[in-house]
């Protein structure tokens, strides 16, 4: 069993998928299925075993913020109906929080370069959060975006030389897949909520930024993931089964993710 759980594919894909599926199904009556993404992600963090509070490195701050995002989401879901303005406000908040995550890296850069990186991190996080928030009421599109963002950030990070960030990203995608499986099986009764869309948007974009700043994922590849929330808005067939909608939405989400990976691969071939 220990060997099984130590396998990177089990840690990053199998366990997060199962945890996401179970949490989405079990918490469905409480309208908290959206916690599936963070549950699967944290299961991977525990299994990979790299987390510790001893030295708060950027990746560990990232895990903390990924854990805090759904809590804010739950409050948003139950305290008030998230509106368009809430997406913008939360985007700004998490964009600023992204600077906190990478502060130690940014301040070691030459001023102008560090400023560009800081603007890039804040803008990508803020945009993705703001663009994902309106999807809180659409579990199919929200779950599909989670699959696309997680796989894109995760595999992109592997191509950028970080297996750890890669596993984290793939775990997020797999956990979102677990949520989406529940949607496919039980229909739209499973709520995404701000808890799901915040977890997905904050965690995936921070992972993409981490793969850029702490490994070698090119900025263009990370930025391509910002198109995922737009891609999943493409039309879905009317009056079809949620399962078919989900498959099509995942396909939409994987197009920008594939663009991210193509850019990451091209950069690795070019020596960047």
């Amino acid at each position, binding site marked *: 069993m220990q060997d099984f759980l130590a396998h990177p594919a089990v840690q990053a894909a199998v366990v997060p998928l199962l945890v996401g599926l179970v949490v989405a199904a079990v918490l469905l009556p409480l309208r908290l299925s959206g916690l599936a993404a963070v549950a699967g992600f944290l299961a991977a963090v525990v299994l990979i075993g790299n987390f510790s509070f001893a030295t708060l490195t950027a990746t560990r701050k990232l895990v903390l913020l990924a854990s805090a995002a759904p809590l804010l989401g739950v409050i948003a879901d139950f305290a008030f109906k998230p509106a368009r303005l809430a997406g913008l406000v939360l985007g700004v908040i998490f964009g600023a929080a992204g600077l906190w995550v990478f502060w130690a890296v940014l301040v070691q850069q030459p001023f102008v370069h560090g400023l560009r990186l800081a603007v890039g991190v804040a803008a990508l996080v803020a945009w993705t959060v703001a663009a994902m928030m309106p999807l809180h009421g659409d579990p199919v599109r929200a779950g599909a975006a989670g699959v696309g963002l997680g796989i894109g950030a995760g595999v992109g990070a592997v191509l950028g030389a970080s297996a*750890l960030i890669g596993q984290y990203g793939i775990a997020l995608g797999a956990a979102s897949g677990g949520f989406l499986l529940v949607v496919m099986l039980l229909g739209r009764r499973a709520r995404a909520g701000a808890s799901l869309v915040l977890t997905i948007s904050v965690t995936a974009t921070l992972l993409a930024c981490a793969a850029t700043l702490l490994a070698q994922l090119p900025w263009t590849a990370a930025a391509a993931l910002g198109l995922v929330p737009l891609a999943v808005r493409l039309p879905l067939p009317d009056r079809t089964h949620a399962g078919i909608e989900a498959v099509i939405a995942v396909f939409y989400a994987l197009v920008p993710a594939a663009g991210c990976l193509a850019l990451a691969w091209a950069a690795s071939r070019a020596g960047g």
Partner: protein
Amino acid sequence: MNNHASFAALVLAIPLAATAAPETYDIDPIHSFAYFAIDHLGVSTVRGRFDKSSGKFTLDRAAKTGSVEVVIDTASVSTGDNVKGARPRTRDEHLRSADFFNVAEFPQMTYKSAAVKFNGDAPAEIDGQLTLLGVTRPLTLKIERWTCKDHPMRKKPMCGGDASGTFKRTDFGMKYGVPAIGDEVKISINIEAYKQ
């Protein structure tokens, strides 16, 4: 008479005091490297080195004390795997990422000590502190070889030798890949340094 004798003793003691003063040596980065060795999959030992380091040490042979400070550029890590081939990234690129040395966040690792132990006239052991990934832990290095002499061509006083020790990388928060990639790291430092 007593005053004259005291003054004479003081004058005679000045050169002795001068030779007993601590000597400071600057590490020659071209001939000084930190190497590491680590178990891989329980099958073999992977070795690597850091190509860039700097620092200095002091020796007070009369008092048999010394201090040392070595700064290692973590981005200079090299295990000889620097050609990608069909792979997207090399092992050295992976070692520089957040999984291992996290060079963007922690560009330096340092070893500092003010507790150099002597065996006879030569330093034999260093009780110091290794700082890696922002974590500082004690690390004892045993000096396996030590020589001080004039450089044969430049005629400049120099000292050098080899020292080694072991630590667990997980103690420094470098947990990725354990146990497939071993926890225990053997570090060896070879140093050549010139007197200031």
